[in-house]
């Protein structure tokens, strides 16, 4: 199981690259859409880049359940 802090840092970089949101704003309790203003299509890009970076598979059905950054970090931690 990968370290959650590392996953958060990696995910923050991906979010920053796709959307320009500051990495420091990507915090566990933040909602991707509500707080970080990330649209469904940018979310798809983030998911694909996360799959590549962390060597995990995040199915389309699962993406809908990943509302917050913390949920995404947990999913990646458990899948890797």
């Amino acid at each position, binding site marked *: 199981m990968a370290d959650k802090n590392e996953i958060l840092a990696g995910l923050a970089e991906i979010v920053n690259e796709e959307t320009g949101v500051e990495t420091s704003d990507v915090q566990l309790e933040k909602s991707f859409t509500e707080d970080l203003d990330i*649209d469904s299509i940018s979310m798809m*890009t983030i998911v694909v880049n996360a799959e590549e970076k962390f060597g995990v598979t995040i199915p389309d059905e699962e993406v809908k359940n990943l509302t917050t950054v913390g949920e995404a970090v947990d999913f990646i931690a458990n899948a890797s």
Partner: protein
Amino acid sequence: MVTLNTRPLQKFSKILGLGTARPDVVVTNDDVCEWIDSSDEWIRTRTGISTRHRADSETSAMDLAIAAARDALQRSAVPPEEIDGVIVSTISHPYATPSLAAKLAHEIGVSPAAAYDISAACAGYCYGVGQADALVRAGAARNVLVVGVEKLSDFIDNSERSISFLLGDGAGAVVVGPSEEAGIGPTVWGSDGSKWETINMTHSLLEVRNRDWISDPVREDEKVWPTLYQDGPTVFRWAAWEMAKVAQQALDEAGVSAEDLGAFVPHQANMRIIDQLVKTLKLPDHVVVGRDIADAGNTSAASVPLAARRLLDEHPELSGRLALQIGFGAGLVYAAQVVVLP
């Protein structure tokens, strides 16, 4: 035993002329929002589409095909009697048989050219160019007319929210003929029928025929006529990332690098897919990218030639330069090749 004669092979083929037809009715995002729960802002930011062009009820897919084919013939300067093949890609010709191609060949005066339709949806134009290239080089036809034509507005339900708002009508056509130099690179093409359901019709015509209309009458808001729907996110993921690999393979097989390209003409499905492809393929800034979708919407088999025609009109210096083109869509199917622009 006698040995059979075969026709002499041609070394190379190229696109000799590219014609188009754009229908007149402009449907805005505000028009769309009369039919579905959406907004101009949502549609622009998620898809890059501001308007789509659609044909009026008097104009058929055949009419659009005839206009584009005549334009391509004229631009290519190939006499009609030297066209030996007509390939039409369409999913919106309203007859299972006979083909749109056979009547088109007659209407534009190229009969008795071999004429047939193919069903490869949004990949159909690039499928057709690949076939035409093979037919010309094999000596099976001197020149081949390839047409991508759609009147998708006949096969959508405007109150449906997954795909209808993206779609427009139109036609594009090219004449492919022999060449002294390679004008069409290897076609990288294929299919993934495991995703057959992801872009499909609501039901088949047999379901319409076999339904017991007495015990199961038409419900309010129900559309009896089969129309298109899709699983947008699944298709987006496939198109934006898997298709970059196909496009890269077309470059590699042609022995061309992104630096060598004058233009990139992807299927006009979604501006965000186009942006992602440009990014993944690392296309340099000097490569002009087809972004006709903003005004024309997604016109399936017609989108690549419509976008290419527009680039040639806006940047005449692209004539003779290399373009990477790729189509992908329902099937799922895909095809890509590098071509020399006419």
